[in-house]
């Protein structure tokens, strides 16, 4: 999998579930791309398509330049605090950036602001603990 080192974006990452699943996750389905699975290293990007943008509206939080990366895009996600890295494929649209404008995740005073990436449990747990709901990340491709 081509997981590059060219800087793409930075911000806050959260996690979500998709694909066949248990509990309240059961209604999510395969996501905007139809292939999303909780057990794979997948992610949701707020500018996966024009329709996706209408839902997430990162521009309302000052993230208007966030680039379009559609289904199948590959990203290298790096935990700002620990440097742990995971390579993911975009398979869904999200998170709803506009609902949490200005929210920050920090490492020792260095903060990354705004939710700009949702990771599946597999991807999120590779770089952090699921019981902590958000992480500051750098994203490369």
């Amino acid at each position, binding site marked *: 999998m081509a997981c590059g080192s060219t*800087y793409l974006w930075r911000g806050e990452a959260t996690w979500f579930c998709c694909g066949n699943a*248990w509990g309240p996750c059961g*209604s999510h389905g395969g996501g905007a791309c139809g292939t999303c699975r909780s057990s794979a290293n997948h992610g949701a990007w707020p500018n996966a398509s024009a329709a996706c943008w209408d839902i997430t509206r990162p521009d309302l939080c000052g993230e208007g330049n966030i680039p379009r990366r559609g289904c199948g895009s590959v990203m290298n996600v790096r935990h700002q*605090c620990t440097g*742990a*890295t995971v390579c993911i494929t975009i398979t869904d649209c999200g998170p709803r950036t506009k609902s949490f404008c200005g929210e920050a995740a920090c490492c020792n005073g260095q903060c990354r602001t705004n939710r700009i990436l949702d990771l599946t449990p597999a991807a999120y*747990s*590779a770089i952090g603990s699921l019981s902590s709901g958000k992480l500051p990340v750098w994203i490369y491709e």
Partner: protein
Amino acid sequence: MSPNRNTPDAPEGRELHRRRFLSAAALGGATIVGASALGGLDADAAFAAPSPSLDPAIAKTSFAEGRVAGINGSMLEVAGSHGEFHRVQLTNATSIWKLHPTTADAVEPGDGLYARGVEMPDGSIAADAVWVNIVNLHCTIRGIGRDRLELAHNNHAVVGRVVKGTTAASYHGSALSSDLSRLRIGQDAQVLGAWRPKDDSIDIARVSVGR
């Protein structure tokens, strides 16, 4: 399940001694304060910083998802949601989360789980961490009661139970707090909690609300 089994706040006998020993050891350890190592770097420097060992690119860790189909001693038999099958080995170094940090006897057949660990030669996964019934949902708050939040997730109604002493709230990115009185009806909220298979509700660990 009694609440005490889930909360490690009431130790007895040997465990109490062990905690005292560990407390003394922790207080005798190094004190670390100061500026961030990675946070202050620019994007290229942050990427160039060496990776720690917990790096999935090296494929050291495995991941399992599914529902507990059976429990065989400390081995969990897990039916994956896409038809796969996992055997997840709990060890005395495995952390188990089920609303709180808890122990293996809190895991029940029918529970959903995510497990991270190392794949063994026999195909089982020796778990480092297991999160039981954990969900992290984007919801809208539809109602507030003394012991519950009425939530809508993907327009499905979900009951979120407020667990005294556990449920915490974060407002607009503030630190998690035990003060839940600033939650409002109509707010968008991220709810992290433990799903209860018996009644399909959620025990809330944390709720984060935006502006």
